[in-house]
């Protein structure tokens, strides 16, 4: 009996030792939480980064709201949000923010006889569809924009994202910019009160619902539309030009943006001017404390971000994300100088 207890005690001690070892190994990982939209690319970067440096990333894609809550509560080293925080909110919580990667939101549809890229809409018409003002595909407003397309009289089933998401934020921000009525009645947020239509959960839900329903229109992240070969729609941008959703048109929107004068990088890339700009483009942001409790952890995180800016562009491209332009990256790296440890030294400078 005594022998047995002794054995158990030994086993328990060994296990405790193993547990401490593994937590020590975990502590070296960079911890972050937030937006689901950039999760695939963060995961891919993290994988490659771990192979190169041995430092892993523990990123929980719990949603932008959760990411903001966790970084405010200081339970993670960085938070991630698809919706930029306003400069005053950043100051209130002692945070800095910077854009990490970009993506586009693409309207998709399921209309009999209409091929991908055949139909084009402008923002006001899209807003009217989602407000329930335009209810048939052969409505004069749509026909006017597409004189060559034979449109059926099918009822439009507007499909929206029911879960709060950065995709919703970009889409509603764009519609609010181009339609005063949309701004007045619905507004822009990660979830809004849609007056009509059907809600589906996640990109996959919207894609599924749109593909299944005759006459449906929806909006998904670009990667989703591309990989599922959905019938995407072209949009008419701020300059009045017809643009196709593709990597170069998202980059055009980012290139035209005035990052240098955007306080706290508070910049939403929707409805940018420029002949080739895709109107529903957005960046995903990282949030870090200005005076972190654990400067060493932040240093590790910054090293990872710097690595991703420099060497991650190709991987981003492969997953249909848009890497940040070089000019923005050097601005961001300058901003990192504001992150200071308890000793007042800049964390990022020490890393270099």
């Amino acid at each position, binding site marked *: 009996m005594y022998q047995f207890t002794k054995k158990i005690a030994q086993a328990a001690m060994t296990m405790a030792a193993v547990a401490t070892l593994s937590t020590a190994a975990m502590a070296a990982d960079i911890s972050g939480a937030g937006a689901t939209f950039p999760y695939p690319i963060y995961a891919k970067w993290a994988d490659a980064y771990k192979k190169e440096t041995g430092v892993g990333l523990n990123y929980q894609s719990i949603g932008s709201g959760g990411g903001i809550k966790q970084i405010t509560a200081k339970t993670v080293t960085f938070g991630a949000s698809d919706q930029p925080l306003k400069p005053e909110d950043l100051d209130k919580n002692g945070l800095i923010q910077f854009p990490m990667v970009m993506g586009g939101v693409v309207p998709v549809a399921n209309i009999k006889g209409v091929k991908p890229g055949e139909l084009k809409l402008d923002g006001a018409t899209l807003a009217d569809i989602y407000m329930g003002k335009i209810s048939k595909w052969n409505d004069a407003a749509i026909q006017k924009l597409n004189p060559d397309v034979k449109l059926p009289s099918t009822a439009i089933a507007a499909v929206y994202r029911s*879960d*709060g998401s950065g995709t919703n934020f970009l889409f509603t921000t764009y519609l609010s910019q181009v339609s005063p009525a949309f701004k007045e009645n619905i507004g822009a947020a*990660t979830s809004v*009160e849609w007056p009509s239509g059907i809600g589906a959960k996640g990109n996959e839900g919207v894609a599924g619902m749109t593909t299944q329903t005759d006459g449906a229109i929806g909006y998904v992240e670009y990667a989703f539309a591309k990989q599922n070969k959905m019938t995407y729609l072209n949009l008419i941008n701020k300059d009045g030009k017809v643009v196709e959703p593709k990597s170069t048109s998202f980059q055009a929107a980012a290139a035209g943006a005035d990052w240098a004068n955007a306080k706290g990088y508070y910049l939403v890339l929707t409805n940018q001017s420029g002949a080739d700009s895709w109107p529903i483009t957005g960046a995903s942001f990282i949030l870090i404390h200005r005076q972190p409790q654990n400067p060493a952890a932040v240093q590790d995180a910054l090293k990872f971000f710097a690595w991703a800016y420099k060497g991650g562009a190709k991987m981003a491209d492969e997953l249909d994300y848009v890497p940040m332009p070089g000019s923005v990256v050097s601005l961001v790296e300058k901003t990192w100088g504001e992150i200071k440890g308890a000793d007042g030294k800049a964390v990022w400078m020490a890393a270099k």
Partner: protein
Amino acid sequence: MSQQAESMALSAEIQQRIQRQRMLDRAFRAVTMFFALLVLVILGAIIISLVEGSLPALKKFGWNFLTTERWNPVTEVFGARAPIYGTLMTSAIAMIVGIPVSFGIAIFLTELAPEWLKRPMGTAIELLAGIPSIIYGIWGLFVFAPFLQRNIQPLLIAVFEDVPVLNTFFAGPPYGIGILTAGLILGIMVLPFITSVTRDVFETVPALLKESAYGLGATTWEVVWQIVIPYTRVGLVGGIMLGLGRALGETMAVTFVIGNAHRISPSILAPGTTISASIANEFTEAVGDIYTSALVALGLLLFVITFTVLAMAKIMLIRMQRNAGTRT
């Protein structure tokens, strides 16, 4: 002399052993009691945090929270009427579908099925309970909803087109997803719960009673309606309540197929939302105190509704047990 000493030593050892065993018993009792109390503590903690979390929203909206249909995160006006309606409506549809089918299965299994079929069939139905709800959701969205959209819903709309009242109830367009679809999926999901309880209580009916009825020339139909169901009445209600509790709180499967619209439509083909679906959809990205608090308040409401249902079930089960004692 030596014999006496030996027996003394023996009795001392026995005494010691008895004492040790008593102590072990006491320790065991303390540990089990701790576990039992832990449940109460956790329950209490959940209630407290729910109430605390929902206070800002409840203070701001008061009773209007229950009666407002609007749910606008942009202007921060929140009301729970649409989710409450959706929760009760989908559960009601689930019960309308689930109860008769479950009863039928239970009657077949206890009264009519040949012996060799009883066990595999009973197990198959209980297996339904083991399917994760996300699977029901995905199946509902990609298989069941398109089927309803193409075949059932156009038929319902066409059949009831000229019938007053019912034509608003089954008004188009057929989206495939909506309150009805969610209710039907829930109906399938509660089947195993109601069926297994129903079957168990049907088996408590004494053979004497049934055989007497058969002996008097009663048909199976008459035995079921006049002997089995009256005898097990209270237990049946308990089973139904368990199924209802499950239907009220189901989240993932419903979220996929209900259409997630914070609106109350007269038509059950239209999209709606339930309490749990709203929370699952919006909690992750809810920014702002009032928004989060409104979602927690929804959770509190669901807790109150479910708790009431389960408490009723418990009371009925207790009454059934008491009655079972007096009747046989």
